[in-house]
């Protein structure tokens, strides 16, 4: 056990699985880096250095740089998964899904069903998401609702280094296509992370705070903010449960329902654009299945329905933050009074 950054946690998970299983390969643009270049051996390891060190250890046969052809290499990863490898492909920014979504949602996701059950597609697609980096409209999106919508995909959104390592190892060992979302603002966050390999199951939510007054569900980087909000609210006498579902597909709706039944109040924090997002998904499921327990309207904390702005002044306003979460919780605490049926 040692303190490790989110970046190191992801790296270690992949490294350990590559060591364990020769069928695990890694591919992506500059994922080793330097292909064909003078300084080929001392290269990037991904644009933000997440895969640095894998190539020296496992060689270029298992750590493959690619040309800028996401449909080509993500499709190749899907085909390789279908035929016996366990590829970990890097879609550098999830914003680039638009040039290769077909290979993900019509090919990899549907093989098993279309082929009558006979396929297995152990593919992991790692991808960077989220705002806060001043990376503007085309490099700051979340987009995990689009993947969650697709039957056949699993969607993983780790919220800390500890989760990142355990969920990545689980993802690589999983036999279905998994989209693994890494928030670019989390890479430098540190945490205690065991040295040995371990897995965290998909579809099992993690309770990061427990309380009686309200339930907060949050995803990815938003879990940190939700914890902070819960701590501040706790100091003010409002005790909150914070749920990190860890995966949106499968989703541990049972835990969410159970906690909402206990507190009667729900706030969902989702960094994704507000329409048809995870906050709506969860609110809808709860409004259907734990309706009787609700003491207040369900509040969603999401950005406005706009592209992500570049200017720091606007991006900070755009993003959910601790303040906004606190005021949503205060709102559900204040609400009350409903017609009886």
């Amino acid at each position, binding site marked *: 056990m040692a303190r490790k950054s989110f970046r190191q946690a992801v790296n270690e998970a992949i490294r350990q699985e590559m060591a364990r299983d020769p069928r695990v390969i890694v591919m992506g643009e500059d994922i080793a880096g330097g292909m064909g270049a003078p300084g080929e051996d001392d290269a990037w390891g991904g644009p933000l250095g997440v895969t640095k060190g894998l190539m020296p250890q496992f060689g270029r046969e298992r750590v493959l740089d690619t040309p800028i052809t996401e449909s*080509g290499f993500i*499709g*190749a990863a899907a085909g390789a998964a*279908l*035929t016996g490898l366990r590829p970990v492909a890097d879609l550098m920014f999830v914003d680039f899904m638009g040039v290769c979504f077909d290979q993900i949602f019509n090919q990899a996701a549907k093989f098993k069903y279309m*082929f009558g059950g006979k396929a297995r597609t152990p593919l992991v697609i790692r991808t960077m998401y989220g705002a806060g980096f001043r990376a503007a409209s085309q490099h700051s999106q979340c987009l995990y609702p689009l993947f969650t919508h697709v039957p056949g995909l699993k969607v993983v959104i780790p919220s800390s280094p500890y989760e990142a390592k355990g969920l990545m190892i689980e993802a690589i060992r999983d036999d279905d296509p998994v989209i693994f979302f890494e928030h670019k603002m989390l890479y430098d966050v540190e945490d205690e992370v065991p040295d040995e390999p371990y897995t965290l199951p998909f579809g099992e939510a993690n309770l990061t705070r427990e309380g009686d007054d309200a339930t907060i569900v949050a995803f990815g980087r938003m879990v940190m903010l939700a914890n902070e909000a819960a701590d501040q609210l706790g100091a003010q006498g409002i005790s909150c449960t914070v749920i990190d579902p860890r995966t949106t597909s499968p989703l541990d709706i049972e835990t969410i329902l159970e906690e909402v039944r206990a507190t009667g109040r729900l706030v969902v924090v989702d960094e994704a654009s507000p329409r048809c997002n995870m906050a709506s998904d969860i609110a809808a499921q709860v409004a259907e299945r734990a309706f009787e327990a609700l003491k207040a309207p369900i509040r969603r904390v999401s950005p406005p329905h706009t592209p992500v702005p570049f200017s720091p002044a606007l991006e900070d306003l755009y993003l959910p933050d601790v303040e906004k979460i606190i005021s949503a919780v205060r709102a559900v605490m204040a609400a009350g009074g409903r017609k009886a049926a």
Partner: protein
Amino acid sequence: MQLSREELLRAYRSMCTIRQFEERVHAEFATGDIPGFVHLYAGEEASAVGVCMNLTERDSIASTHRGHGHCIAKGCDVAGMMAEIYGRKSGLCAGKGGSMHIADLDRGMLGANGIVGGGAPLACGAALTAKTLKTGAVAVAFGGDGASNQGTTAEAMNLASVWRLPVVFVLEDNGYAESTASAWSIGGDPLVRAEGFGIPGVRVDGHDFFAVHAAAGEAIARARDGGGPGFLHLKLARYFGHFEGDGMTYRAPDEVAKLRAERDCLKLFRRRVGEAQLLDDAALDAIEAEVAAEIEDATRRAKAAPMPSPADLLTDVYVSY
């Protein structure tokens, strides 16, 4: 490369099976019993069979929406295919895939594909598996003239080139993508494009089984030996509409009749093996009769087979969830 008598018989059987399968699906579709979109391969048999005769079960192919011929050439069970097209539980994909999604991974058939250009990247993946695990296998990506313009095709070819993958791209240029002529839709020359990706290519008469077989054999052998990807541009023709129901107003009125009379791959094959006295008519006729019985049987069984049961709706989405 000289084909043995047994190989020639196998090739003819395979081409005949495709032809009769497709003629039967065409007839059955007209009765209204077959659901959905169906794209028939009749006329193009020399391509699927000429290429796949060079492959083993370990090798993979990625196919297209017009996939029946590739499936049969790669050894898929004909009765299972017919049942699939009828949406039956006994279908190769348990009725969930249909004509556009027939696959048989045990035979290296990675699926027909409803997305034009969708298969080429997948074939690269199969080739990557072969290369990484050093299995000695190769992969083939079939694609039409329409697909040759799709960006995914270009990306896959470049990727295959820089990774030196054991994959062969087979462009089945049947003159049309739906109603659009390939002479119009392809700016430039596919062979030059392949060269632009660093891939050696050759143009072949796709009606001529022997020419296809030889050219594919060469490209596949080179790929298998680590020589990197190859490319074939086959000129051929489909006999039916783009999909069943297509009135083909965009084709010349006598186009298909002429092709059937003069450029039919089965007739050319028979003439060639007859002239060279490699096979006699009796042997070939016997094959045709056997195939006819097989197709009849497959069709009868497909029609009689039960539909999937309601519980099947929810299975096979994930390995575990």
